[in-house]
């Protein structure tokens, strides 16, 4: 269970969100809101992005995360998929996985490579994807698929996906929905930031959080998604 209690988030002295109280248990959770409302900011604050000043309490499985660095939160099992992942020249897609799984001795490096290649093939990524440089000369869709591979390989307890649908074609969206359904079926927590109707309508969310007016509103009423898709965010202004 990921819990945010009276959290406020600021950057460069300017407060973006305040009075944030949220709980994310197993299941799929949607975060929606108008452009620039702070949805991505919220995702990054949970991961302790150093660009943001975060006050209040964030806990995961009753463990206080306040003093934990980003990599420590990730090692606890929290994963963030980026809206626009940054490229790293000279670092291959597989090397990232290898380094991230360095402490995992449950499978050999060859097994990990084989698993990586299998996922890349399932997602219709080109042969040799493991050797390609991370997010370099990759399309928006390829970057998103690569994030999905990382999610599958790292197998976290909580996955925060920031607009995972952007840049994906119709087939890739269907692959994404399949992957998320498999992931959700294994008692994991998935937090999806999205505006995309098809994605939002493919799941029965456990909660819906609307980020608007410099704060958050969380509800278990899944009809909120339909209301937002029909009427926008004016009710939350």
């Amino acid at each position, binding site marked *: 269970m990921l819990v945010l209690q009276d959290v406020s988030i600021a950057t460069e002295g300017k407060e973006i969100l305040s009075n944030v109280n949220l709980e994310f248990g197993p299941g799929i959770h949607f975060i929606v809101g108008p452009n620039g409302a702070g949805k991505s900011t919220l995702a990054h604050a949970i991961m302790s992005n150093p660009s943001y000043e975060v006050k209040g309490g964030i806990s995961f499985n009753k463990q206080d995360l306040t003093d934990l660095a980003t990599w420590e939160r*990730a090692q606890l099992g929290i994963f963030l998929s980026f809206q626009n992942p*940054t490229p790293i020249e000279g670092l291959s897609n597989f090397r990232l996985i290898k380094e991230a799984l360095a402490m995992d001795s449950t499978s050999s490096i060859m097994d990990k490579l084989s698993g990586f290649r299998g996922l890349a093939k399932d997602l219709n990524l080109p042969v040799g994807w493991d050797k390609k440089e991370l997010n370099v000369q990759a399309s928006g869709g390829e970057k998103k698929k690569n994030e999905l591979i990382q999610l599958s390989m790292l197998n976290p307890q909580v996955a925060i996906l920031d607009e995972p649908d952007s840049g994906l074609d119709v087939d890739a969206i269907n692959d994404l929905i399949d992957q998320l359904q498999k992931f959700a079926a294994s008692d994991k927590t998935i937090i999806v930031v999205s505006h995309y109707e098809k994605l939002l309508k493919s799941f029965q969310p456990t909660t819906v959080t609307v980020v608007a007016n410099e704060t958050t509103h969380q509800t278990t009423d899944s009809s909120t998604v339909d209301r937002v898709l029909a009427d926008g965010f004016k009710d939350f202004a």
Partner: protein
Amino acid sequence: MNISYVLEHADEVLQKVEDSVAGDIQITPTGSTADFWTTKAKTFTPMFSEYGHFFKKRNMFGDMALNNTRIAGVSLSGQSTKTIPTRVCYTATTDVLDQHVLAYIEIEPHCNVLIDEEFFNDADFKIYKIVYVVREGATVNIRRKINVGGSHDTIQIIETEVIQHPSSIFNIHTQDGIQDYLQDIYFVEALQDTVTNITGRYFGKLNNNIHVITDIDHVGTNCKSNVDVKSVTNDESRFTFAGNLTVRQEAEGADAHLSNKNLQLVDTVTVITEPKLDISTKEIACTHGCTVSSIDKDQLYLLNTRGIDNNTSQQILTDAFLNG
């Protein structure tokens, strides 16, 4: 030991020389020797009166090598060597005070050779003037490793002069180990229809001093050159790069590119980079770019979000920078 100390106390510095290591070819201040099984290379002793003009005075430290008039000569030939490297080891000699080396290496016409150069840290102060003459149509690929073996904090001054005859290809990739003091200097004369690629990867730590100069002179038509030098500096190390590109009036069709990227891991290092272009004709393509940067915070954050700690992330990003 730093270079100013050595220069001021040159007479007093005792050259402690370690055991030499043999390669296919061994080059020392007293000459060159080839192991008996080596058939693809022959060694000889060029007369200074005949070959001395190849070793130009540059008003640099490398000129001290001219105190030695004994030239180590090597001639490489044969197509079969393009995948099997010839190992050339630069080692010290126990019975001389000054480790000054003059080496003349000739690649015979239309040959294709691969050379593994190794510079041993087996004396306190070593200076080299190395001349490569790459004959018509020949290709030479050199993998240069500096700081091999030995336990000395060696001061290495390596001045490499390359004379490229028409339609020749000269490729060199330098990988520096941790080096107390290094000058790695290249002068290339590209005559016509030549290809030159110089890549260098340097890593400075502690109070290392690394200085790299590349100077490519496009003399004739249709010469291509690419210089790609990267450095990573940490602690209180110092790295300087000077890249000179000259395109003469007659050198139409030149295609010259110069890049120097530097990654400084802390702000206590010193990095200086200076490109200099001297272009005397219009019918060319020429680019240059020099940058000095720190670890990218977004890249560090991305690795952190995958559970990789800061030290490991920094190591990964350093490797990526050098490999990219």
